[in-house]
């Protein structure tokens, strides 16, 4: 099964110090700061089960920010998300990556308890991973070399990645 990716901050998903009060299996409330919905929709990207499109999605998401930085992300089985009753809609992304936008997904209809279950699923069954900034920049540079980037858009941001 494919995965769903969302950029996060890993530190928000670690239990704070002296957090014995968090019930076992539950998540730190700070993790929900990475789950900020708009119109009850949360943006994700679909990653193939062999993860062969992971680098392209990383480039798409990273270059949608203002500057290069560490890239923390969560990966969760799409199947598990669907089992939560969450609707996944194919909505093209708006990144400068020429290929990746078709892998963008919106998780829609997220009310409070669904959102919480989604976060719990990510925390307990997902993967929380990190790419250091230099590796992100290297991926972007490679994508530029392979002409996978629309260089006419966000040139000032792109310049920060490739210089």
């Amino acid at each position: 099964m494919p995965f769903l990716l969302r950029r996060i901050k890993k530190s928000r998903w670690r239990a704070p110090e002296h957090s014995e009060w968090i019930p076992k299996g539950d998540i730190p409330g700070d993790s929900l700061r990475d789950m900020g919905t708009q119109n009850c929709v949360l943006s994700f990207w679909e990653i193939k089960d062999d993860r062969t499109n992971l680098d392209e999605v990383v480039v798409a998401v990273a270059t949608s920010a203002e500057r290069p930085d560490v890239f923390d992300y969560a990966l969760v089985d799409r199947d598990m998300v669907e089992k939560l009753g969450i609707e996944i809609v194919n909505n093209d992304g708006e990144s400068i990556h020429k290929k990746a936008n078709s892998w963008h997904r919106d998780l829609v209809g997220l009310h409070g308890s669904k959102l919480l279950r989604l976060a719990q699923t990510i925390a307990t069954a997902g993967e929380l991973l990190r790419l250091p900034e230099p590796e992100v920049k290297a991926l972007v540079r490679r994508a530029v070399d392979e002409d996978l980037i629309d260089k006419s858009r966000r040139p000032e941001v792109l310049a920060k990645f490739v210089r």
Partner: protein
Amino acid sequence: MTGAVHRFRAAFESDSEIGSEMLLSDRMATSVLKRVLSEGIAWTTYKIRPETSGSYAYLNAVSSQLSLTPGSSVATSGVADDWALHTSDDPLPRIAVFDAGVDTGSEWFAGISIGQPTRVLRPNATTGEVFLLHFAGHGSDADFVMEIPEVYPALAPNRLSPDFGRQLSFVDAHTHRAEIKSLFELGRNELFEDGIESSLAKSLLQYLRLHGRGAVRALAYLIHEERGTSEVLAEAVRALARSGDVATYSLRRDIVERSLSSSLHAVRDAASIALVAMDDPHAIAALEAAIKVEPISDLQNDLRAVRDWLRRSR
């Protein structure tokens, strides 16, 4: 004291007599400063015209020993022959801010923040003499830095009026801490996102540019005493890594390294990210020590990854 480090990107264009209009390229700024500071020239107005052909940065600088008054500044700005006079302490608009300065130990500190009120000062001076310059860097490429330690011995005595110097106030550590703490308070309500420059980071970096080493030390105090929320402190640690101030580099690296032993995992995590950004193999020893005692296995793995990255980048 080490030799001067100059990292300017453009070529020297021309250099006419002091007081006259001249073209100034990036590389020339050092020689300008050296002449101002070492020769004690009684400047009236120093004007620099940008290259007409270039899209890259140019500088404006004005020093007027006699007309400067405490709390104000005089600087020119403009493009080519279109000059305007800037007469406030507010940064000039659209300025690409960069820093220069050096800490030579207990006696001298100098910081030059382009686009900000600039002080070259001597904290231990009994006379209160202060040499003040204003520099402004314009343009999208004005992201260079400079370090000019060899000019400092020539600073004393400067030629400013003692009255002028005495009226300037020195910012003490408590004031720095209070100012930065107020920035922390504002940051409490901010949502920090990787790859997005936060308002807190912008404010902190601007403050550090303006006040240099004293402000960095105050920030260190607040980080190590954990006088803020974990996310705010983490953001501050990461901002330290992004400051381009070569004068405070080793101090900032020390602060980041020390943050690896914070009791707050978010700060330890931020320190590891900051060390990647600083890309300095000197931090490997601190990382090794941190890895040994890190209680969170996932964070321990991230620390190992940073250590391995820095080893590879040697």
